[in-house]
């Protein structure tokens, strides 16, 4: 990670890193408005290398950019959805080093060096992952907007071994809201996929 800003230290957000990177100010920008309060003049850019679905992506973003917005707005990986942007709905669930996270609550900068898996990374070419197939066969979605997050969460739920009973699946899939309310089918899909994946 490379931090490139003359002003990052004011809020001490990235103080240490900023000092370390101070020699390299390739992306520094001059803030023009004289009357602007210091708060809004904050600007910093970081160069990141993110590994998503096995592919390396290089991008330059502000430190405040979330993993979710980096995926969607910078990398055109729009399968991951923004439902609430505050960790309440689970639509943005991705795997980070195999663990499920709400990507709206993860700064892109903190994902560097981690292995990120999104919904686009599950299928093997045209062959869907067993969890994806299970969702299709169980009719475990309607509008489809929460589905990416549900499937990523299901991947982790199965990996965690939280599929011993329908009750256990329901509990461990409850971080992912589905307003179409496909919950019974989601539970059935996770159970079916867990059985197939052994």
């Amino acid at each position, binding site marked *: 990670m490379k931090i490139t800003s003359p002003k990052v230290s004011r809020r001490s957000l990235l103080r240490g890193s900023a000092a370390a990177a101070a020699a390299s100010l390739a992306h520094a920008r001059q803030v023009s408005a004289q009357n602007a309060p210091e708060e809004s003049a904050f600007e910093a850019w970081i160069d990141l290398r993110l590994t998503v679905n096995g592919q390396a992506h290089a991008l330059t973003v502000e430190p405040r*950019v979330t993993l979710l917005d980096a995926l969607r707005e910078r990398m055109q990986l729009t399968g991951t959805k923004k439902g609430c942007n505050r960790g309440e709905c689970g639509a943005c669930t991705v795997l980070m080093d195999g663990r499920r996270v709400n990507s709206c609550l993860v700064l892109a900068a903190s994902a560097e060096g981690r292995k990120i898996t999104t919904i686009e990374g599950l299928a093997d070419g045209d062959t869907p992952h067993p969890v994806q197939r299970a969702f299709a066969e169980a009719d475990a979605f309607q509008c489809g907007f929460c589905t990416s997050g549900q499937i990523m969460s299901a991947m982790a739920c199965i990996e965690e071994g939280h599929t011993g009973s329908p009750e256990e699946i329901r509990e461990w899939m409850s971080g992912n809201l589905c307003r179409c309310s496909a919950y*019974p089918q989601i539970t059935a899909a996770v159970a079916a996929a867990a059985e197939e994946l052994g």
Partner: protein
Amino acid sequence: MAIGDIITRVDAPTKTTGQAIYANDVNLRGQLYAAFVGATVPSGRIVSIDPAAALAIPGVVRVLTEADMPRPAPSFADLYVPPLATRHIPLQGLEIAHEGEPVAMVLAETLEAAEAGARAVDVVYDAAAFTDPALAEPVDPDPGRGDYSFLDIAEFEKGDAAAAIAAAPVRIARTYTQPSRHSNPMEPCAVIAEWSGGRVTIHDTIQHVAALQGVITGVFGLEMDQVHVRSIHCGGGFGPKGFIWPHQILVPMAARVVGRPVKLALTRAEMYALVGMQPHMVQEVELGADENGRLLGISHIASNETGVTEDYIEFSTVPSRTYYACDAIYNRQYIRRGNVTLPTYQRSPAEGPGSWALGSAMDELARELDMDPLDLRLANYADVEPSSGEPWSSKMLREAYEMGAERFGWRNRPAGGTRDGHWRLGYGMADSSQGTQRYGSSARVRLRADGTAVVESSFSDIGTGSATVMRQIAADILGLDESAVSSREGDSVLPEAGPTWASATVISTGTAVHRAATEVRGRLARLAGWPADAVGVENGALTHEGEARPIRDILAEAGVSEVSGDGTFTPNGGEFSDAGPEGFPSRVFGVIFVEVAVDPELGLLRLRRATGVYSAGRIINPRTARSQMTGGIIWGWGMAAMEQSRLDPVLGRWLSKDLAGVAIPTNADIPELDVAFVDEFDERSGPLGAKGIGELGATGVAAAVANAVYDAIGLRVRELPITPEKILAG
């Protein structure tokens, strides 16, 4: 593939792989991100707006206020409300109608800059006293304030209900209330607009493509062919993506002002401010009956909150004049105005709130009579439509009652209050029923030389499975395999379809698709030299008197590359919509049984199981239909036990504008649900024999749950939702 077969949803491959493109997934070259500055006061006037701090933020390009925005063209005055949700468009003046209303719009090169810019705009308000509509005086709706008054009737009278109730040996009079409730589709509203040479292209997420196209022509004074609307996928509708809300007008306006594409996605908090909710309601129900439970009189008087700009009416009295046989019925609708976003029709409109009040009152009457609530329903079974006396288009509710009672074990259920550990069990039931709405729709079916077909219509598949069943209908008529039929939908360049709301899509657009495919089959027969009305189809071949010819061969021999057919569904009298076949009132019916567990010491309420059985005409795809019904039942559970939005009485804003402070059902709340349909074909509803089911499942559930809570612990809750403090207070 035939109608009635179980078909996997056709959008499964894209929706399970993240490839389905929703409005907020669209990115256009040169686009600017928009963020709103929302009013922090619920009423008053903007004094000044200082954008300097926002403009100083790197990446912020423009801060638009009412002074920058164009005014609508004169043709705006000709638009109706609805499809406009409200004629009150922000950034057109200085008056504030409700908290959160946009007062400025920040445009920036990045989403982060736009959001930071919105926080930095300095707005000074002259705040005025606001009105909490929950506390406002109920008044008659004014037909001059919007056009919602024309969608149904505000007063209905049959016989002398007051006298009949007064003279009845058994009477109850109760008041039922429910809170404001936000639909919160998982996908927040999003729109991206781009102008090019006087034409505008809008990517949106809506339940009715043609409505947005029509509204935009009116706002900007354009012709229909100058407005291109696309809504290929919609991440949940449930109401607030039905009518056209101000942000859908402001984004194209902004794009025109700056000459660049503008993209906006509402935040979850803005979903509470910029689009409507199911309104807070107070419903007074009086029932009078004889000793055998026969209803002698029904009075149902309702009031709903509305905004200060238009009079929205939630027609919740509909069930009282349509569910039960009764000679004396009185309905009246009032509204209460206040400083809130205008409400809107939300799953399920009218009958959703209405069935809660009437379904609870019927249970209270059954207790008063010491009758089984199912027997009370049977004693008042409406063999004809009660308000008009006309015969139903079709109704098999008796069969649904019987099947539901059998599946649930209603007749031999344990006594209410039976213990399971610290839980007390209760059993309740209520009627589910929704009126039919049909809208003018058209569709085209094109059969190609390779033996594949495509269905084209602008209908919106909001997750209800429309694309799946439309293909299924065409495949059935043409004798094709499901893999041979594709569809194009959600685009205004396609033949115009009616809206995806009010359970209307299958009965309206489905009929148009059926007719278009039938037209194609007729043309195919003529190519084959066979009479159009005497051919059959089978496995990609046309058949006639034992002879079969592959469709591909017929087209090849005739030397045509494609056979196309158009189909339309036109409501009675050529109107935009109707309520079913002329002279035969149309509804869908059903019954919902629930078992709940109540912990009276902790105030906890749990759904243990539920059975819903429905009389809803022919079912096109049992798999997608089942999901529609279970989804509706879960919506009903949310209404019954969880969901509410509360207005801060001091600040005039919603207390929680998120998914944390407002509880909605999660997976752990929901057990396995039992759903079934009566085998039924409504021959009067159209060639499909189908009706609509989208709104049906969510009706009746809240009443059934409240009735089950009473059964469990003897506590009658008349104020939704049934939350722990209400159980503890009992």
